[in-house]
């Protein structure tokens, strides 16, 4: 076994150029082969890559899908998301526990199955969902998962679980997945017909400066959430000092409720790669990296084959599309389960083979990014939009959408609505019109922009979906009558606690305290002072955190305090005696009695 391990690690490290920068790929390979990255494997990897063992341990312990303890041959990660919960993931969990005879976090004694929870995998429109090794399974029920487990136990491979593939390219043999696109409304930017290389050639006919000008004219703003001007970002990166520069495509798509990048990559991969190539030309780069979240590993082979086709067609490689002197190529980098790696500097850390820690700013990635070189990180949808801009024009693009938010936006909709899925709508659409479109007009609340966004009440349904009003990176979760918004908020806080990188105090510790107090209120043990306590605590976390994760993690609480304050007040008891309501004296005495082995005479 040990001999095997040594041979394998040596082989994998050599394949990755004995480069510690490729730690993600190395750890992924070792994990897949041995179902863990054991302490022994860490020592070997460090030796082979000539790096610190603690770097390897740091990486292995950071990502959700790596483990130091041996996992089962089949690992079932059930999606632990608020929408999955609404759609019955508890039944699926119960069926799994019964069928396997183990709890979550455990492995069956025969070493065959491991059971685990994982946050939103980008499938809330077909929830409950799970990831079985690298295969995504959707629309689960207790019976369905039982049947799958039986099949796997009888020797079926995970691919055999796909009986009916999903729509569109999902049925392509390179994907062959049961995942569905559920595209409900097509718009003119992303889902309109497009021909390969047309946009690229139009861009290459211009100078890089003109390309940047055109993007500025389009008014395109980043689709990943922050909404920064894409043209400006490219201008800064182009202007930054450095021979080598990099383009990174952010396909981490970790914000719960967001799944639009999955559909773009499935249906419009060429658009994305073409946008990245245009970006490379604009900033003066020869290399692009697409960072794909670990949950989307099933797409890797497909995306690699699209890249290969583009190389064959001369659209990547030396003298791209016949443009003398413009050499450019792209590779796909897989993540391994970490929401924070969607933050651009953490994404870069991850690509560099270290923990997915957020970097200190300044310097910004545009000045000092991947491998210390100027880097532009943009979202999948941003790159796809760039491609359209060069097929049509910047002028054309700026004419759609609203003032300040040009173009269209892909919205990923899930929850209590009749037609969950993907909608490409022009910016500026009123929330109420959108709810009618997706069949969610009964909503009592909508989470706009995912947990880091805002939970709005019906008073806000007249507001419009655009950067300067209701901003969203694409996540729209609809909650119908009877849903408990405080429980939703608690679930989101749980997500942030687990996904915090742990670097800075307020986010690492503060979120734990926010959740504790919120849960206390939900349990009916809240005190009047708890609202003020939460308000101050949320503010501290928001303004002192080091990155966007901590700066937005209190939002589920601050937005419910603002938009659903009655939900808090109605659960808080009058407490004239100033008793500590969460203190249960009988429970404490029972515990004390158990420790001391005797009961108090007075109780």
């Amino acid at each position: 076994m040990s001999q095997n391990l040594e041979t394998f690690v040596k082989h994998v490290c050599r394949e990755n150029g004995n480069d510690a920068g490729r730690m993600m790929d190395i750890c992924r390979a070792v994990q897949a082969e041995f179902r863990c990255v054991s302490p022994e494997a860490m020592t070997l990897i460090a030796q082979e890559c000539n790096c610190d063992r603690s770097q390897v341990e740091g990486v292995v312990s950071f990502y959700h899908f790596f483990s130091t303890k041996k996992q089962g041959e089949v690992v079932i990660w059930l999606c632990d998301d608020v929408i999955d919960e609404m759609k019955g993931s508890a039944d699926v969990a119960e069926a799994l526990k019964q069928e396997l005879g183990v709890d979550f976090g455990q492995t069956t004694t025969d070493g065959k199955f491991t059971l685990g929870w994982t946050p939103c995998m980008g499938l809330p429109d077909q929830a409950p969902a799970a990831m079985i090794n690298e295969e995504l399974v959707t629309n689960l029920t207790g019976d369905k998962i039982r049947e799958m487990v039986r099949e796997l136990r009888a020797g079926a491979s995970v691919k055999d679980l796909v009986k009916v593939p999903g729509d569109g390219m999902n049925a392509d043999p390179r994907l062959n997945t049961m995942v569905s696109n559920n595209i409900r409304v097509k718009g003119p930017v992303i889902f309109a017909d497009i021909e390969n290389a047309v946009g690229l050639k139009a861009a290459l006919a211009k100078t890089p400066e003109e390309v940047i000008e055109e993007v500025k004219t389009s008014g395109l703003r980043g689709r990943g959430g922050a909404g920064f001007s894409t043209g400006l970002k490219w201008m800064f990166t182009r202007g930054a000092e450095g021979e080598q520069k990099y383009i990174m495509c952010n396909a981490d798509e970790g914000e719960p409720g967001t799944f639009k990048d999955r559909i773009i990559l499935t249906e419009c991969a060429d658009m994305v790669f073409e946008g990245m190539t245009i970006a490379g030309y604009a900033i003066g780069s020869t290399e692009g990296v697409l960072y794909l979240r670990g949950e989307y590993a099933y797409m890797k082979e497909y995306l690699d084959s699209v890249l290969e086709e583009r190389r064959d067609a001369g659209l990547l490689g030396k003298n791209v599309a016949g443009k003398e002197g413009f050499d450019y190529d792209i590779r796909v980098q897989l993540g391994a389960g970490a929401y924070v790696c969607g933050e651009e500097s953490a994404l870069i850390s991850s690509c560099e083979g270290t923990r997915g820690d957020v970097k200190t700013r300044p310097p910004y990635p545009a000045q000092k990014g991947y491998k210390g070189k100027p880097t532009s990180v943009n979202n999948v949808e941003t790159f796809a939009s760039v491609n359209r801009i060069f097929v049509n024009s910047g002028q054309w693009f700026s004419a759609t959408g609203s003032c300040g938010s040009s173009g269209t936006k892909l919205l990923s909709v899930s929850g209590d609505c009749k037609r969950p899925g993907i909608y490409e709508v022009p910016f500026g659409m009123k929330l109420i019109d959108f709810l009618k479109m997706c069949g969610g007009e009964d909503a009592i609340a909508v989470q706009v922009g995912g947990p880091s966004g805002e939970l709005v009440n019906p008073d806000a349904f007249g507001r419009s979906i655009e950067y300067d009003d209701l901003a969203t990176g694409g996540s729209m979760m609809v909650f119908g009558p009877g849903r408990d918004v405080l429980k939703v908020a608690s679930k989101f806080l749980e997500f942030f606690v687990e996904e915090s990188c742990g670097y800075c105090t307020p986010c690492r510790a503060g979120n734990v305290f926010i959740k504790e107090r919120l849960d206390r209120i939900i349990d009916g043990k809240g005190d009047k002072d708890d609202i003020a306590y939460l308000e101050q605590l949320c503010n501290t976390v928001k303004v002192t955190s080091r990155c966007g994760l901590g700066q937005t993690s209190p939002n589920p609480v601050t937005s419910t305090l603002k938009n659903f304050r009655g939900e808090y007040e109605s659960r808080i008891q009058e407490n004239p005696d100033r008793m500590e309501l969460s203190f249960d004296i009988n429970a404490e005495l029972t515990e004390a009695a158990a420790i001391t082995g005797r009961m108090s005479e007075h109780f």
Partner: protein
Amino acid sequence: MEQNLEAITFTIDGVEVQGMPGQTILEAAEEAGIYVPRLCQLKGITPHGSCRVCTVKVGGSWTCAACTQPIYEGMEVDNSSEEIQTLRKDLVEMLFTEGNHYCMFCDKSGNCELQAMAYRMGIMAPKYPYIYPEAELDASHPDLFIDRNRCILCARCVNTAQEQDGKSVFDFAGRGPHKKIIVNGEKLSDTQLAAADKAADACPVGAILPKKGAYAKPVGARDYDDAPIGSDIEAKVCK
């Protein structure tokens, strides 16, 4: 300090201060005899920016860590308003309750920067609940031990070992509330850490301590017995 054409002029709490390009707010303030509270920052080491205790407000609108934010001309820094003090107090309280800090029998008591910071800020008892995390102690090394119960994840040991001792000794594992300090090897004695290393003396709290000579400084002669933390900086007469 020699006046230089390139000097940057800015204000801290309305007082005009001069600094050099590339300096952080914390560095420039310190040279001017103004103390910005800090825990993870250690002079001469790359700032880590993790404790956030040095949080300041700039231009009345945005907050940042003074230890990592470079100064610029005309910057208006708020280092002492009630708002800023509240934020800092909250952070220090969080550090106490997320770990296991039993000051009454800690060898570092009186010399501990976390404890001294709490005294300086007038914290009597933290308002957050204690988490009581389980943490490991590593006493495998002949001269030093590491007690993770008291670690505030400041990285001062990590970076001091790297930058001043030229060794890889410490690093971090895990994330979120599970983040912890680890050593480059399976245990501390596997590392190259030596008692005389700068890293052995870099810890602001009692997480890395020598095995011999506990409670060496008597009460009354400890670092913060006479004056609050930061007094040395404030006592400096500058320019």
